[in-house]
């Protein structure tokens, strides 16, 4: 046995030239494609930068910034929205501490978004220094919550209760206000708008449609023909039409049903319509997940003597949901984008506020492109962040690997 006189070093990682040769020019047609694409990209970037620097006039965005964020919410009462955000950040941090990997990617994404928003290098009137500090403070709260959750290891049940209380507090007390309390002036939902409403509708829609979707999915798999028929009909009917028709139709139907003179909150109408719409798609996603659970599991559970209810609760649903989470996040993203359609109910969510801003000054008619690009950017950033988190979550859960 002879020891090698010199240890062989592993080959050095390929340098830049090698990488270019292998990835961009490995075949002749790849080389051509690379050159053409590079030219295309350079031309496009050049035009975009030129426009951005020279021609674009961002006045509608900088002057009406707060409107885009919270709509017509009275600007001296915006601290309540801030408080709600702070509560959410704190609870999210605690959830991260307890939930660990499940929540990690989302928490980090949200923290990054808040930090980015705080550090926008552009001078915007409404984005004052205290505001920026507040946003950074929210990131800090997130982190503090994380530490707290890790240290205390509170039971998951307490956390769920805390979330429920927090949501009830935000939706029923903080945002709308109570007339009797001086500090909490009333703010009717017709004034809520902008990104605030978009987020409320999207998050509320997904969260509320989850239980309904589960019921519908189970109903569709049921062996009772009436239940199965009803669930299938409901799902197929809702999925067969665009969301905009459901919104409009729901509003019409409601107007017929309600007694003359009553006011059914418009935001609530939109939320219900979106929930119903989302429930149908959620049901289909869950059905896919249910089908992914190996039948052997159910048979084994039956052999052990569980009845149907417990089988669903402890065996089927947990496994199904793990498979279904990527699809659910995808649905959240498309729901988030679809909230633009509530314009038809007269609700000024982000795109609706954009419309109002364009019409607020005769000179803004020529600045439509800037407004739409800004709105597109907000949607894009949030949607991309969500889908990035979802991918990280999939990796953490090991979906597709086991």
């Amino acid at each position, binding site marked *: 046995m002879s020891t090698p006189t010199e240890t062989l070093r592993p080959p050095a990682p390929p340098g830049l030239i090698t990488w270019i040769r292998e990835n961009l020019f490995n075949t002749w047609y790849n080389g051509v494609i690379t050159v053409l694409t590079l030219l295309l990209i350079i031309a496009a970037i050049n035009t975009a930068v030129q426009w951005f620097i020279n021609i674009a006039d961002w006045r509608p965005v900088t*002057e*009406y910034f*707060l*409107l885009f964020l919270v*709509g*017509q*919410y*009275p*600007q001296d009462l915006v601290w309540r929205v801030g408080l709600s955000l702070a509560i959410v950040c704190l609870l999210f941090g605690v959830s991260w501490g307890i939930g660990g990997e499940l929540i990690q990617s989302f928490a980090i994404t949200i923290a990054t978004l808040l930090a980015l928003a705080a550090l926008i290098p552009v001078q915007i009137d409404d984005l004052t220094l205290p505001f920026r500090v507040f946003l950074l403070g929210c990131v800090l709260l997130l982190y503090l919550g994380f530490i707290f959750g890790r240290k205390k290891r509170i039971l998951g049940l307490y956390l769920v209760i805390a979330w429920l209380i927090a949501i009830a507090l935000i939706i029923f007390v903080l945002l709308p206000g109570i*007339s009797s309390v001086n500090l909490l002036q009333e703010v*009717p939902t*017709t*004034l809520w708008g902008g990104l605030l409403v978009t987020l409320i509708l999207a998050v509320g829609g997904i969260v509320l449609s989850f239980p309904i979707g589960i*019921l519908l999915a*189970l*109903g569709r798999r*049921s*062996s*009772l023909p009436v*239940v199965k028929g009803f669930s299938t009909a409901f799902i197929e009917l809702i999925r067969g039409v665009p969301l905009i028709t459901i919104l*409009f139709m729901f*509003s*019409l139907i409601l*107007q*017929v*049903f*309600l*007694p*003359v*003179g*009553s*006011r*059914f909150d*418009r935001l609530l109408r939109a939320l219900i319509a979106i929930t119903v719409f989302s429930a149908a798609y959620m049901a289909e996603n869950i059905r896919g997940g249910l089908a992914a659970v190996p039948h052997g599991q159910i048979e084994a559970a039956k052999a052990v003597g569980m009845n*149907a*209810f417990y089988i*669903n609760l402890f065996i089927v649903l947990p496994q199904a949901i793990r498979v279904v989470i990527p699809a659910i996040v995808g649905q959240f993203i498309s729901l988030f984008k679809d909230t633009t359609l509530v*314009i*038809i*109910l*007269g*609700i*000024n969510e982000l795109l*609706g506020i954009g*419309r*109002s*801003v*364009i*019409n*607020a*000054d*005769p*000179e*803004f*008619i*020529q600045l*439509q492109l800037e407004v739409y690009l800004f709105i597109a950017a907000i949607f894009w950033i949030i949607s991309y962040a969500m889908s990035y988190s979802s991918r990280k979550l999939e990796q953490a859960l090991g979906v597709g690997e086991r």
Partner: protein
Amino acid sequence: MSKKILIAFTLISLFALMLAACGGGGDEGETLGRGAILNRVKERGKVVCGGRTDLLGFGYLDDAGNNIGFDIDLCRAVAAAVLGDPNAVEIVPLTAADRGPALQTAEVDILSRNATWTSSRDSQWGNFTSVTFYDGQGFMVRKDSGITTIEEMGGATVCVTSGTTTEKNLADAFRQRNLDFDAKIFEETASVYSAYEEGQCDATTSDKSHLAAVRQGFAEPDAHVILPITISKEPLTPGVPHGDDQWFDIVKVVIYSMVNAEELGVTQANVDQMKSSDNISVRRLLGQEGDWGYSDLGLEAEALAAAIKAVGNYGEVYDRYMGPNGMAFSLPRDLNNLWSEGGLIYAPPIK
């Protein structure tokens, strides 16, 4: 599984039934009675007004997010008259398709949304009070196109907003003259005007007040001209739901008071001094003497004075948004001037 579904469905159906039971009492005779709206306004503590947030001059937003505009000020005047506080209003943004049903179901107390008073709307939607703005539908073309009449527009491309009487009037006007035209119809007014400005259309049509507003925002306002033709009458009138005569009268009298105030020289600034004026009509208007109807209407004697103090008289409201120094744009009063100055604004006396 079956038990769970059974329980679930029973619960859902019960819930649905409860919801419908609370919500729908649709079997009883469902029209509002006299006094119903005033009562609910007082109970609620604010007036609910259907309006717009995206129409420059009439209903739009300032950079703090407040609702401002000609139509909005009318709502504030009513709130001031009824509740004493012009800020006790809630503006519900309504789309064109929604304004009819919103008024029909009395979801809003007043519809102050730049709506044209027509006979069919009067029969379907609600009661129309008193014309606050006499508008007409006209055309805007480029000056260098040389067009001066509709007859010269055969075959032209015209940009128009969807879903309003504007489309219909356009079609009628061309059909009557046996002319073809090519319509570009958009949902949003901003799209209409940018399409026109970029040259996608030869002409655009809308209420002349809109055209004036928009023209000011163009890159070259003087390159465009609003033709002196009017193809239809557009009396913009606030509406109230059917069935409550008292509320109908209340809104009307507020409008009348603003017009009378301008005639009599009462302004937002001098309301308090004018209460001791020598002119009997002024004192009656401001509730110092006589009963102008407030007792039957359930209002305070000085309700109209409160309204005028809150928003000003008709001319002041007009000038605020559309006068020579108007916030939105400037449009000569023409038809919207007082009858004594050659316009059509005329109101019955307050006495």
